[in-house]
């Protein structure tokens, strides 16, 4: 049975480091999670939280956020051999299938793109990832095994 640790932070960049700190400390709890996988977990969670925070900023331009809705939730399900993290926002949602790929890194045009590396990084670093967008917001569920499979 998973141990559940849950964190809620304001949807603002200066709270990102708290999310990284907590998730890494929670996973380090289990001594089977080695340092390099903790790094992978730290970065994946940070990228998902960054997107969640940016979704709030984007949504707030169109309509002011509801009372109490301007926070994001990070839920960690800890097992001996794996950690699942669910990041939930109240932003506008998106279509993860519609994201364009970058030009190849050897193409000079690659340098025109400063953004768009977050989700590719999450896909590479996690063992499983699932995006559940809705008009009420998005839930990203990432699973990392202690030993990458």
């Amino acid at each position: 049975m998973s141990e559940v640790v849950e964190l809620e932070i304001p949807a603002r960049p200066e709270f990102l480091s708290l999310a990284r700190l907590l998730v890494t400390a929670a996973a380090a709890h289990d001594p089977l999670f080695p340092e390099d996988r903790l790094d992978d977990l730290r970065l994946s969670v940070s990228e998902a939280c960054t997107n969640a925070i940016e979704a709030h900023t984007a949504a707030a331009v169109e309509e002011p956020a509801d009372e109490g809705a301007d926070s994001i939730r990070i839920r960690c399900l800890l097992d001996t051999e794996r950690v699942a993290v669910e990041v939930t926002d109240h932003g506008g949602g998106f279509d993860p299938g519609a994201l364009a790929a970058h030009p190849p890194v050897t193409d000079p045009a690659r340098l025109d793109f400063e953004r768009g590396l977050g989700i590719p990084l999450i896909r590479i670093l996690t063992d499983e990832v699932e995006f559940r967008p809705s008009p009420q917001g998005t839930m990203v569920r990432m699973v990392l095994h202690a030993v990458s499979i």
Partner: protein
Amino acid sequence: MIDLGLERSDRDGWAVLSVAGEVDVATAPRLREQLIELVNEGQYRIVVDLEAVEFLDSTGLGVLVGALKRVRTYDGELALVCTESRILKVFEITGLTKVFPMHRSVDEAVAAV
């Protein structure tokens, strides 16, 4: 709030920017500003020393890509110093080690050209 350490120095005609701490969407704007300032001053040969960086995310990568594009416009170069496997890995898995000149020390970076 996390502090991002940014220190400038000069070495053999290169501007060296030493970065320390965590580079994420909260701190990356300060890195971007500093790099833009260098270019505005006419410094087109830049070494960014990442040895004291503890965390770097996609926003940080984006800022470095943007700066590389900017200096290349002026026929300049932006080289990185990075040996920590935690940070190096982020460049490797995104393929960006093929885009940036990567070095093991500021000395090596400056001597390489």
